[in-house]
Protein backbone atom coordinates (compact mmCIF):
# COMPACT_ATOMS: atom_id res chain seq x y z
CA UNK A 1 0.00 0.00 0.00
CA UNK A 2 2.98 2.27 0.55
CA UNK A 3 3.65 2.22 -3.20
CA UNK A 4 0.08 3.33 -3.80
CA UNK A 5 0.38 6.10 -1.21
CA UNK A 6 3.51 7.36 -2.93
CA UNK A 7 1.87 7.34 -6.37
CA UNK A 8 -1.33 9.06 -5.21
CA UNK A 9 0.67 11.69 -3.36
CA UNK A 10 2.97 12.23 -6.34
CA UNK A 11 -0.13 12.75 -8.49
CA UNK A 12 -1.24 15.55 -6.17
CA UNK A 13 -3.57 14.06 -3.56
CA UNK A 14 -2.36 13.97 0.06
CA UNK A 15 -2.53 10.55 1.71
CA UNK A 16 -2.26 9.10 5.14
CA UNK A 17 -1.81 5.41 5.87
CA UNK A 18 -2.82 3.41 8.90
CA UNK A 19 -0.35 0.60 9.51
CA UNK A 20 0.20 -2.30 11.87
CA UNK A 21 3.47 -3.31 10.24
CA UNK A 22 6.05 -0.75 11.20
CA UNK A 23 9.00 -2.47 9.52
CA UNK A 24 7.20 -2.58 6.17
CA UNK A 25 6.07 1.03 6.50
CA UNK A 26 9.59 2.21 7.38
CA UNK A 27 10.92 0.35 4.36
CA UNK A 28 8.35 1.32 1.72
CA UNK A 29 8.28 4.82 3.18
CA UNK A 30 4.87 6.37 2.44
CA UNK A 31 4.44 10.14 2.86
CA UNK A 32 2.48 9.99 6.16
CA UNK A 33 1.45 7.13 8.40
CA UNK A 34 -0.03 6.30 11.78
CA UNK A 35 1.21 3.10 13.43
CA UNK A 36 -1.23 1.00 15.44
CA UNK A 37 0.47 -1.86 17.29
CA UNK A 38 -2.31 -4.41 16.75
CA UNK A 39 -2.30 -7.92 15.29
CA UNK A 40 -2.59 -8.33 11.52
CA UNK A 41 -6.18 -7.87 10.36
CA UNK A 42 -7.14 -5.02 12.73
CA UNK A 43 -5.54 -2.03 11.02
CA UNK A 44 -8.49 0.21 11.94
CA UNK A 45 -9.33 -1.15 15.40
CA UNK A 46 -11.17 -3.89 17.24
CA UNK A 47 -14.36 -5.56 16.01
CA UNK A 48 -17.65 -4.13 17.26
CA UNK A 49 -15.95 -1.19 18.95
CA UNK A 50 -17.10 1.82 16.91
CA UNK A 51 -15.86 4.34 19.48
CA UNK A 52 -12.32 2.96 19.28
CA UNK A 53 -12.48 2.69 15.47
CA UNK A 54 -13.56 6.31 15.21
CA UNK A 55 -10.76 7.39 17.52
CA UNK A 56 -8.14 5.50 15.52
CA UNK A 57 -9.35 6.79 12.15
CA UNK A 58 -9.55 10.35 13.50
CA UNK A 59 -6.00 10.04 14.84
CA UNK A 60 -4.80 8.82 11.45
CA UNK A 61 -6.52 11.66 9.59
CA UNK A 62 -5.06 14.21 12.02
CA UNK A 63 -1.58 13.36 10.70
CA UNK A 64 -2.23 15.70 7.77
CA UNK A 65 -2.01 18.59 10.23
CA UNK A 66 0.53 17.09 12.62
CA UNK A 67 3.25 15.59 10.42
CA UNK A 68 5.46 17.94 8.50
CA UNK A 69 8.35 15.69 7.59
CA UNK A 70 7.83 13.43 4.54
CA UNK A 71 8.02 9.82 5.71
CA UNK A 72 7.13 10.60 9.33
CA UNK A 73 5.15 8.00 11.29
CA UNK A 74 2.83 8.93 14.16
CA UNK A 75 2.83 6.33 16.91
CA UNK A 76 -0.69 5.70 18.18
CA UNK A 77 -0.90 5.05 21.94
CA UNK A 78 -3.33 2.12 21.78
CA UNK A 79 -2.44 -1.32 23.10
CA UNK A 80 -4.16 -4.49 21.94
CA UNK A 81 -4.00 -5.99 25.43
CA UNK A 82 -2.31 -5.46 28.78
CA UNK A 83 0.64 -7.58 27.73
CA UNK A 84 2.27 -8.42 24.42
CA UNK A 85 1.44 -12.15 24.48
CA UNK A 86 -0.38 -11.82 21.17
CA UNK A 87 2.94 -11.11 19.46
CA UNK A 88 4.39 -14.39 20.70
CA UNK A 89 1.23 -16.24 19.70
CA UNK A 90 1.37 -14.75 16.21
CA UNK A 91 4.85 -16.27 15.84
CA UNK A 92 3.83 -19.65 17.25
CA UNK A 93 0.73 -20.00 15.11
CA UNK A 94 2.93 -20.38 12.08
CA UNK A 95 1.81 -20.02 8.52
CA UNK A 96 -1.92 -19.48 8.32
CA UNK A 97 -1.93 -18.30 4.74
CA UNK A 98 -4.38 -20.08 2.49
CA UNK A 99 -3.46 -22.08 -0.61
CA UNK A 100 -2.92 -20.15 -3.79
CA UNK A 101 -5.66 -20.69 -6.34
CA UNK A 102 -7.02 -18.72 -9.25
CA UNK A 103 -10.72 -19.21 -8.56
CA UNK A 104 -12.62 -16.68 -6.44
CA UNK A 105 -12.55 -17.53 -2.73
CA UNK A 106 -15.94 -16.45 -1.45
CA UNK A 107 -16.58 -15.83 2.22
CA UNK A 108 -19.67 -18.01 1.89
CA UNK A 109 -21.35 -20.06 -0.83
CA UNK A 110 -24.31 -17.67 -0.91
CA UNK A 111 -21.93 -14.98 -2.23
CA UNK A 112 -20.90 -17.21 -5.10
CA UNK A 113 -24.53 -17.60 -6.13
CA UNK A 114 -25.17 -13.86 -5.78
CA UNK A 115 -22.17 -13.01 -7.94
CA UNK A 116 -23.24 -15.57 -10.56
CA UNK A 117 -26.77 -14.16 -10.60
CA UNK A 118 -25.43 -10.62 -10.95
CA UNK A 119 -23.54 -11.60 -14.12
CA UNK A 120 -21.04 -9.02 -15.31
CA UNK A 121 -19.56 -7.06 -12.46
CA UNK A 122 -18.95 -3.45 -13.55
CA UNK A 123 -17.54 -2.60 -10.11
CA UNK A 124 -14.95 -5.39 -10.32
CA UNK A 125 -11.89 -4.02 -12.07
CA UNK A 126 -9.63 -6.78 -13.35
CA UNK A 127 -6.17 -5.37 -13.96
Amino acid sequence: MGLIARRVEADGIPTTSLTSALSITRSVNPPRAAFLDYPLGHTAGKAKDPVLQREIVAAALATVDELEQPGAVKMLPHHWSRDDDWKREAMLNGDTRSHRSSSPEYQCEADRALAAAAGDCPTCIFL
Partner: protein
Amino acid sequence: MRTRDLYSSLGHDPYRWVRNDDSPPWTELVKPLRECRVGLVGSGGVYRAGQVAFHHRDDSSLRVIDTSVPVSELRTSHFAYDQTDARTDPNVVFPLDALHALAAEGVIGELSSRAYAFMGGIYSARRVRDVLAPEISRRLAEDQVDLALLVPV
Protein backbone atom coordinates in the same frame (compact mmCIF):
# COMPACT_ATOMS: atom_id res chain seq x y z
CA MET B 1 11.24 -6.79 12.46
CA ARG B 2 8.38 -9.00 13.61
CA THR B 3 6.97 -9.67 10.16
CA ARG B 4 10.32 -10.47 8.60
CA ASP B 5 11.16 -12.82 11.48
CA LEU B 6 7.82 -14.56 11.06
CA TYR B 7 8.39 -15.24 7.39
CA SER B 8 11.91 -16.48 8.07
CA SER B 9 10.77 -18.73 10.89
CA LEU B 10 8.26 -20.33 8.52
CA GLY B 11 10.92 -21.21 6.01
CA HIS B 12 9.62 -18.89 3.33
CA ASP B 13 11.88 -16.69 1.35
CA PRO B 14 11.74 -13.35 3.09
CA TYR B 15 8.92 -11.25 1.72
CA ARG B 16 11.01 -8.57 0.11
CA TRP B 17 9.01 -5.45 0.35
CA VAL B 18 10.24 -2.44 -1.47
CA ARG B 19 12.89 -0.30 0.15
CA ASN B 20 12.69 3.42 -0.59
CA ASP B 21 15.44 5.44 1.03
CA ASP B 22 14.52 8.65 -0.72
CA SER B 23 12.23 11.28 0.70
CA PRO B 24 8.65 10.31 -0.25
CA PRO B 25 6.52 12.51 -2.48
CA TRP B 26 4.66 15.19 -0.57
CA THR B 27 1.49 17.15 -1.27
CA GLU B 28 0.23 19.71 1.22
CA LEU B 29 -3.42 19.61 2.16
CA VAL B 30 -4.80 22.86 0.80
CA LYS B 31 -7.98 23.11 2.87
CA PRO B 32 -9.00 22.30 6.43
CA LEU B 33 -9.83 18.67 7.16
CA ARG B 34 -13.39 19.68 8.01
CA GLU B 35 -13.89 20.74 4.39
CA CYS B 36 -12.22 17.73 2.80
CA ARG B 37 -13.75 14.96 0.77
CA VAL B 38 -11.98 11.84 1.99
CA GLY B 39 -11.42 8.72 -0.09
CA LEU B 40 -10.82 5.26 1.36
CA VAL B 41 -8.58 2.55 -0.05
CA GLY B 42 -8.22 -0.76 1.81
CA SER B 43 -6.21 -3.88 1.06
CA GLY B 44 -8.05 -6.23 3.40
CA GLY B 45 -9.66 -8.14 0.53
CA VAL B 46 -13.08 -6.53 1.00
CA TYR B 47 -15.82 -7.14 -1.53
CA ARG B 48 -19.55 -6.53 -1.47
CA ALA B 49 -22.00 -9.41 -1.66
CA GLY B 50 -22.84 -9.69 -5.36
CA GLN B 51 -19.30 -8.83 -6.48
CA VAL B 52 -16.73 -11.40 -7.52
CA ALA B 53 -14.48 -12.40 -4.59
CA PHE B 54 -10.71 -12.25 -4.77
CA HIS B 55 -8.77 -15.31 -5.80
CA HIS B 56 -5.65 -16.12 -3.86
CA ARG B 57 -2.97 -16.26 -6.51
CA ASP B 58 -1.52 -12.82 -7.09
CA ASP B 59 -4.87 -11.16 -7.58
CA SER B 60 -4.29 -7.48 -8.27
CA SER B 61 -7.90 -6.65 -9.13
CA LEU B 62 -9.89 -3.85 -7.57
CA ARG B 63 -13.43 -3.59 -6.18
CA VAL B 64 -15.30 -0.31 -6.28
CA ILE B 65 -17.43 -0.09 -3.15
CA ASP B 66 -20.33 2.33 -2.84
CA THR B 67 -19.72 3.90 0.56
CA SER B 68 -23.45 3.98 1.35
CA VAL B 69 -23.37 0.16 1.47
CA PRO B 70 -24.56 -1.38 4.74
CA VAL B 71 -21.44 -2.84 6.33
CA SER B 72 -23.41 -6.07 6.78
CA GLU B 73 -23.11 -6.57 2.99
CA LEU B 74 -19.32 -6.43 3.04
CA ARG B 75 -17.26 -9.61 2.93
CA THR B 76 -13.56 -10.40 3.03
CA SER B 77 -11.40 -12.74 1.00
CA HIS B 78 -7.68 -12.63 1.68
CA PHE B 79 -4.97 -15.28 1.63
CA ALA B 80 -2.75 -13.89 4.34
CA TYR B 81 -4.50 -12.92 7.55
CA ASP B 82 -6.95 -14.30 10.08
CA GLN B 83 -10.25 -12.86 8.87
CA THR B 84 -12.33 -13.86 11.89
CA ASP B 85 -12.69 -10.33 13.23
CA ALA B 86 -12.89 -8.70 9.81
CA ARG B 87 -15.79 -10.97 8.93
CA THR B 88 -17.50 -10.14 12.22
CA ASP B 89 -16.98 -6.44 11.61
CA PRO B 90 -15.46 -5.38 8.26
CA ASN B 91 -14.81 -1.93 9.75
CA VAL B 92 -11.62 -3.29 11.32
CA VAL B 93 -10.00 -3.35 7.88
CA PHE B 94 -12.35 -1.02 5.98
CA PRO B 95 -13.49 1.71 8.38
CA LEU B 96 -16.63 3.00 6.65
CA ASP B 97 -18.64 3.52 9.83
CA ALA B 98 -15.87 5.56 11.45
CA LEU B 99 -15.59 7.76 8.36
CA HIS B 100 -19.37 8.25 8.23
CA ALA B 101 -19.30 9.21 11.92
CA LEU B 102 -16.47 11.70 11.38
CA ALA B 103 -18.36 13.24 8.46
CA ALA B 104 -21.53 13.52 10.57
CA GLU B 105 -19.52 15.20 13.34
CA GLY B 106 -17.95 17.62 10.89
CA VAL B 107 -14.39 16.43 11.54
CA ILE B 108 -14.14 15.76 7.79
CA GLY B 109 -16.23 17.39 5.08
CA GLU B 110 -17.56 14.19 3.57
CA LEU B 111 -16.74 10.62 2.71
CA SER B 112 -16.37 10.10 -1.04
CA SER B 113 -19.23 8.10 -2.55
CA ARG B 114 -16.79 5.46 -3.79
CA ALA B 115 -14.15 3.50 -1.92
CA TYR B 116 -11.64 0.99 -3.30
CA ALA B 117 -10.65 -2.43 -2.07
CA PHE B 118 -8.07 -4.97 -3.13
CA MET B 119 -6.21 -7.90 -1.62
CA GLY B 120 -2.84 -6.92 -0.22
CA GLY B 121 0.27 -9.05 -0.30
CA ILE B 122 0.70 -8.82 -4.07
CA TYR B 123 4.16 -10.24 -4.66
CA SER B 124 4.95 -8.22 -7.75
CA ALA B 125 5.95 -4.71 -6.73
CA ARG B 126 6.17 -3.90 -10.42
CA ARG B 127 2.50 -4.77 -10.90
CA VAL B 128 1.50 -2.62 -7.95
CA ARG B 129 3.64 0.29 -9.06
CA ASP B 130 2.87 0.17 -12.78
CA VAL B 131 -0.74 -1.03 -12.88
CA LEU B 132 -2.63 -0.90 -9.60
CA ALA B 133 -1.27 2.35 -8.13
CA PRO B 134 -1.93 4.47 -11.24
CA GLU B 135 -5.43 3.01 -11.57
CA ILE B 136 -6.29 3.86 -7.95
CA SER B 137 -4.72 7.29 -8.25
CA ARG B 138 -6.68 8.04 -11.42
CA ARG B 139 -9.94 7.01 -9.78
CA LEU B 140 -9.32 9.06 -6.64
CA ALA B 141 -8.64 12.09 -8.83
CA GLU B 142 -11.82 11.42 -10.81
CA ASP B 143 -13.71 11.25 -7.49
CA GLN B 144 -12.17 14.63 -6.63
CA VAL B 145 -11.05 13.55 -3.18
CA ASP B 146 -8.96 16.01 -1.21
CA LEU B 147 -7.33 13.37 0.94
CA ALA B 148 -7.01 9.59 0.78
CA LEU B 149 -6.97 7.29 3.82
CA LEU B 150 -5.11 4.06 3.05
CA VAL B 151 -5.74 1.01 5.20
CA PRO B 152 -3.38 -1.85 4.40
CA VAL B 153 -3.59 -5.42 5.67
